[in-house]
């Protein structure tokens, strides 16, 4: 580790149609270390990885490999430079043999034909190097997921590898399998490979990593030695403490009617979904702003999706206005006054090639059915009033929604749902990845809505934000509700501790 870094990124900037995904980020990776990249959704982790692995190009900044400017114009170029990647979703071919998977595209040849025997022995050696003893001729899909993961690593290692990028390699592995993977990672580290390990499991990061780089909202927070950084500090750095105007707090009034006598508008008793959420109970009252706090993968999104019919429930009872109901689809939920806004704006929110007007009127039109078309005048009126109310910019209703900035897209999604006049609005990370100004506007809007009698479930990775807007907070960890308390009785530190699991 006496020499310079194997990979050195400086001043990296990446922009997607107006949204800055990465801004002025520096990053170093040394030979023989395991380095973790940490951050919540939208922090810029995957963008940085994509830049290093040649999937996308930087708009500004440089990447040096071994001190030399590198030509990372394509994944193939990155591989030639010694950078190999194992992606989150294992990108192997399940119906081919293990050997074929390991050597795909680099098959040994003899007289122009594939040398099958040589291929099997080469693959066998590559696997043996990782301590994996399986028959290279067997079909890949017959093996466990963890073994397949190791095959993917063996595949990444058959090239001359200096840097190995592991993107969420453990998300579908059980404990023993993770231990097996870590054994391999340690041995690679001893062989001098630089390993970039991305995972949202804090325990694993602390177990395997030497150094941590934290990103937030596309910016670098800092680079730390794992041993110098307490878990609670790490979480704090990931989630951030942004100073936003606090007059919001002053205007907050907790409705009195929210006592135990009044009937909750939605109450879930032991609702669950196999492999997604263990039995969980939640209640929400009229005019209440319920905040859900927890890290990525804590179950915050899973609860929201079950409550709003996006995913259906396997067990437990969901009551709307005291009547047991089964929500088969988001449409079902909407007809009962429950509207859900996804955390995934691009895939589950905005319809990019339709105009702002068409996006805003979509849900209302869908409810009326295709035959009862809203007149163009009504559409113009509706979209104009929402554009004004939410200050959507640019204010042109005929602009394609996909061309708007993230914050404005979020407002368009909100307008679409608000046009339905829902009684319960479920907002999954409505402020993620948008600029601070829009963020405050959306927080204000949500508090106003609640004051006018609407109920809102507000999910955010930013604990401070949850504390600031919510009346009551549910804290989730490992898919379980661990705290259900009034926001006033919680402090940022107690919330942080709960989310992180005390401290180890």
């Amino acid at each position, binding site marked *: 580790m006496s020499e310079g870094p194997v990979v050195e990124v400086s001043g990296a900037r*990446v922009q*997607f*149609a107006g949204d800055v*995904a990465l801004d002025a980020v520096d990053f170093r990776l040394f030979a023989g270390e395991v380095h973790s990249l940490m951050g919540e959704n939208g922090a*810029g982790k*995957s*963008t940085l990885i*994509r830049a290093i692995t040649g*999937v*996308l190009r930087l708009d500004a900044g440089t990447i040096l490999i071994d001190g030399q400017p590198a030509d990372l114009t394509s994944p193939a170029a990155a591989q030639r430079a010694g950078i190999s990647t194992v992606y989150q979703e294992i990108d192997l071919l399940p119906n081919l043999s293990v050997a074929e998977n390991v050597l795909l595209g680099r098959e040994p040849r003899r007289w122009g034909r594939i040398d099958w025997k040589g291929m099997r022995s080469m693959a066998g050696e590559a696997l043996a190097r990782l301590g994996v003893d399986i028959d290279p001729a067997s079909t890949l899909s017959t093996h466990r997921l963890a073994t397949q993961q190791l095959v993917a690593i063996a595949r990444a290692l058959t090239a001359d590898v200096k840097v190995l990028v592991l993107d969420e390699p453990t998300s579908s592995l059980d404990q023993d399998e993770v231990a097996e993977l870590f054994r391999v990672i340690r041995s690679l580290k001893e062989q001098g490979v630089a390993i970039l390990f991305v995972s949202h499991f804090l325990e694993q990061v602390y177990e395997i990593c030497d150094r941590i780089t934290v990103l937030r909202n596309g910016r670098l927070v800092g680079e730390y030695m794992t041993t110098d950084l307490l878990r609670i500090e790490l979480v704090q750095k990931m989630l951030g403490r942004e100073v936003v105007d606090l007059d919001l707090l002053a205007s907050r009034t907790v409705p009195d009617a929210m006592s135990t006598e009044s009937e909750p508008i939605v109450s879930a008793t032991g609702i669950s979904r196999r492999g997604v959420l263990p039995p969980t109970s939640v209640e929400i009252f009229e005019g209440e702003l319920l905040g859900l706090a927890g890290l990525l993968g804590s179950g915050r999104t899973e609860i929201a999706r079950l409550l709003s019919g*996006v995913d259906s429930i396997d067990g437990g009872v969901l009551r709307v206005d005291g009547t047991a109901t089964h929500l088969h*689809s*988001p*449409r079902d939920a*909407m007809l009962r006054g429950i509207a*859900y806004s*996804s955390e995934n704006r*691009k*895939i*589950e*929110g*905005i*319809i*990019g*090639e*339709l105009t702002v007007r*068409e996006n805003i009127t*979509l*849900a209302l*039109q*869908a*409810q*009326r*059915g*295709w*035959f*009862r*078309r*809203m007149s163009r005048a009504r559409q113009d009126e509706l979209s104009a009033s929402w554009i004004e109310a939410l200050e959507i910019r640019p204010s042109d209703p005929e602009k394609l929604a996909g*061309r708007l900035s993230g914050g404005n897209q979020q407002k368009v999604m909100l307008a*679409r749902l608000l046009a339905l006049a829902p009684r319960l609005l479920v907002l999954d990370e409505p402020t993620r990845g948008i600029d601070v100004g829009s963020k405050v506007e959306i927080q204000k809007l949500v508090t106003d809505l609640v004051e006018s009698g609407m109920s809102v479930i507000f999910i955010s990775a930013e604990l401070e934000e949850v504390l600031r807007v919510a009346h009551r907070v549910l804290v989730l960890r490992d898919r379980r509700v661990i705290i259900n308390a009034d926001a006033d009785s919680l402090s940022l530190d107690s919330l942080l501790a709960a989310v992180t699991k005390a401290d180890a």
Partner: protein
Amino acid sequence: MTRIFKHRLIWPIAALVALIVLNSISRPSFLSITITRGQLYGSLIDILRDSAPLMLVALGMALVIATRGIDLSVGAQMAISGSVALTIIADSKTPNSLGTVVVAILAGVAITLVFGLWNGFLVAVVGIQPIIATLVLMLAGRGIALLITGGFITTITSTPYAVLSQGHVLGFPVAFLVSAIAIAIVTVLVRRTALGVLTEAVGINPSASRLAGVRSRGIVWSLYGLSGLLAGMAGILYSSNIMAADANNAGINIELDAILAVVLGGTSLAGGKFTLAGTVIGVFIIQTLTSTITFLGVPPAVTPVFKAVVVIIVCLSQSQRMRGWISGLRPPKRLVVTTPNETPIATNRTTA
């Protein structure tokens, strides 16, 4: 000027105009239209008349493609509706009565509506990939048609039925008027109701549409039904033209021409945004091309090659990347001047 060039239909229209110019240069009579006994005649009128079956099929195809689907069974459905209609007329004691013919047409179209809904069921409810779901009927349909005709080519003589392909009303060929009415009805159906925009929403982003409460199942299902219905009407026109139900040749390969017409018109096979006007122009391009080939005396054996070359040129002219390369050859200054308001679109970037 800039706005004209940015209009999405400019390239299909340019291609059609170019074809017409090419034809009128090589045979000056191409553009002439004569009136004989109150009826219009001429090459252009022939093109309007002959394009009718393809027009009907392509309209349905455009909507199905907008849902991210495809309907390969339209040719086979044409064979089925023709067989049903002609079998009814042939078995009737009064083949020349208008009533018989109307019943025959309605029966032919009704049965393909049912088959179209079957396709829609497979795609929207069972969840089979559209190309496979409709392939089933594409392969089985002609067999069904042969079953209906008992394995023969049923021929008929029925004056009212022949009017569909040979008659004129208000000077125009009846077949053309049928296709014009279909264009009008389909346009009203998708643009005067919310069917069009909901279809586009489902085609562009199915999961976002679901979360917005759009019932995509019903939409997709009924559009396959509509495609079947239109193909059925096309089959009626085709069988009226030859006064025979030829199960093996009716509408052969028409699914490919229809897909081509939709794409030439500027609708993406990826689904989402569709244009009916573009599809109509696409149909005229293909029909004019067919007529050109016949006139130029291109040997039938090499016709596909000729057609392919023209299609490649039109498709390339629509490709963003190709246009980028071509405009890259021009001095960059002029580009800035001609498109001052153009915002660059990131086309090749994947988003994080």
